[in-house]
């Protein structure tokens, strides 16, 4: 029986028509997903999926820095914040400006890339551990500035955050309201879902192409052995900066989208814990492997909601009361996941074949 499954799998992978069929079916499934969720478990889940798609973009961006280039960035959420605030400040009553999304999303991306270079530049000579702490410091610095730049000139509105952000408006269709197209009503969450889906797929595509490009190979070279890479003529400085910049760009775009979805941003959403969550997604899913990272992101982004649905009622039934509230459970699982993954399956849940070989074989040279 196993042989037949294998035949089927082989056919699916290698037959052209099969792949097209698979693609079309997946496409249709994804297109109707919001309506299916609406009808079965409620619109909340569509919102959860929207956020999960944003996290996917974040994880893919961080994957470039951590997975491809091997630079541990613990302050990645700062780029998300930059993108979110760029959009929020320029499309809300705060300054009275209401610039359109096709100006703001690229602007957020460019600004985030700029910060990526600024944050990356001083870290070029640092080794893994120092790099981690410095990037964490940078992430916190950005959050502190966002939280405090409301006096003497009010730039970010401080801890109150920015409210009443304009939703994205494409061709007259505002993503904040429910609209009807061809007789089907599309609420805001669904419209955001389609946009996020398209952009997430785009980001995935870019990452996959990057992986196979010269730049991607240069990143792998630095990750594995920087001195050898230098000796091979790779401009490690520029390559590293590019890693930071590109990772930051995706973060910035995701940030702008976040602003549009939530309608409200505050510095509270960009704390260190968020950086660690995204790192968890990359590590758990499979560092350096685009598909793995997407899996990790989707899993961990929907986990809190799933826990809330299952853990609390289950504990209620079994023990009569809730011993581990979903939030504590989530933190516990994250901590355990990071430890166990590194100890048992360092390449992640769904590693790329090359990476798995690297991380599970014995001995980096000259180790203690």
């Amino acid at each position, binding site marked *: 029986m196993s042989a037949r499954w294998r035949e089927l799998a082989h056919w699916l992978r290698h037959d052209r028509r099969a792949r097209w069929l698979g693609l079309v079916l997946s496409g249709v499934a994804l297109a109707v997903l919001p309506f299916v969720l609406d009808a079965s478990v409620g619109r909340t889940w569509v919102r959860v999926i929207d956020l999960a798609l944003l996290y996917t973009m974040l994880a893919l961006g961080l994957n470039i820095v951590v997975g491809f280039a091997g630079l541990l960035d613990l302050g990645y959420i700062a780029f998300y914040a930059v993108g979110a605030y760029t959009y929020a400040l320029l499309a809300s009553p705060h300054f009275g400006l209401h610039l359109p999304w096709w100006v703001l999303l690229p602007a957020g991306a460019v600004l985030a890339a700029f910060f990526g270079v600024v944050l990356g530049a001083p870290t070029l000579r640092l080794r893994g551990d120092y790099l981690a*702490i410095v990037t964490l410091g940078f992430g916190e*610095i950005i959050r502190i500035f966002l939280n405090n730049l409301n006096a003497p000139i009010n730039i970010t509105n401080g801890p109150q955050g920015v409210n009443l952000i304009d939703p994205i408006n494409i061709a007259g269709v505002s993503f904040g309201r429910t609209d009807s197209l061809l007789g089907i009503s599309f609420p805001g969450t669904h419209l955001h879902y389609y946009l996020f889906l398209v952009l997430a797929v785009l980001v995935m595509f870019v990452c996959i192409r990057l992986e196979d490009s010269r730049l991607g190979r240069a990143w792998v070279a630095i990750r594995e052995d920087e001195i050898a890479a230098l000796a091979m003529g790779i401009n490690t400085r520029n390559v590293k900066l590019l890693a930071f910049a590109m990772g930051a760009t995706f973060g910035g775009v995701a940030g702008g989208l976040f602003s549009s979805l939530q309608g409200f941003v505050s510095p509270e959403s960009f704390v260190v814990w968020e950086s660690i969550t995204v790192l968890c997604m990359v590590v758990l899913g499979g560092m350096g492997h685009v598909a793995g990272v997407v899996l990790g992101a989707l899993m961990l982004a929907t986990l809190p909601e799933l826990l809330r649905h299952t853990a609390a009622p289950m504990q209620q039934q079994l023990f009569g009361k809730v011993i581990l509230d979903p939030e*504590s459970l989530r933190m516990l699982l994250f901590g355990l996941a990071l430890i166990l993954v590194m100890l048992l399956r360092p390449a992640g849940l769904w590693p790329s074949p090359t990476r798995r070989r690297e991380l599970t074989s014995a001995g980096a040279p000259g180790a*203690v």
Partner: protein
Amino acid sequence: MDIFLQQILNGLVLGSVYALVALGYTMVYGILGLINFAHGEVVMVGALVSLSVVELLLGTNLGLPAPLLGVVALVVAIGVCMALGFSIERIAYRPLRRAPRLAPLITAIGVSILLQTLAMLIWGRRYHTVPALIPPTPHAVAGATITNVQILIIVVSALIMAGLMGLVHFTRLGRAMRATAENPVVAGLMGVNINRIISATFVIGSALAAVAGVLVSSNYGVAHYYMGFVLGLKAFTAAVLGGIGNLPGAMVGGLLLGLIESLGAGYIGDLTGGFLGSHYQDVFAFLVLIMVLVFRPTGLLGERLSERA
């Protein structure tokens, strides 16, 4: 002038705590080349365990004198933290000694999160009041004030640092530790049991962390599950400032960072005419870290680590 002196005193007290915790970071980094992210959490565990012991003893109404309670609590806290440090090294770091640099770093973050969550579950999320076993009577010193507990902090930290220096330079264990830090392979060849030395390093560092935790929670009268994270970060900054892997460096770095933070938070508003204020005080620590790493990566007192690719 007395305000200035007060800020100096504040900085010294703060810095003594940073120094104690920084010693733990620097010892581990000197031997393993690893930032023990979970070290700050060990401080937190020390504080909370000692609090629980004190509360337990006070509850039994044995009528023991307060200082004795404090000592018992301290001893228990040290014991628990030493066991914790030993376990962390054995379970989370030892299997990864041969793995690429990223792996133990990520595990360390995982351990940190795990400890925080466990502390949250055991002790809850609220801020616990730490009973004052030593009455914090303030003493006037040339226009500034300092309390009993603060004097204790400075004195105890100084004594411990001196003791540690003595241990490292005048005992066999210390010699073995220095040898392992210098070159573990050769030290192994010379008959040093590397695993034991590494465990000892973690255990000693954790004991220091416990003391720091007890002192900090006594000084501010409060302990909670999140108190270790930022403290750990700052202490690590102090270790880097002084020169990672370097014991005197950790002490100097700690005191210096405490002074920078105190004076910074106190005077930044006046210095910048209200443009920047004390809400940026955390930024100082990070800026110090970044500047040290960019301009003088070996730290103030130089680095004692062989260059690794």
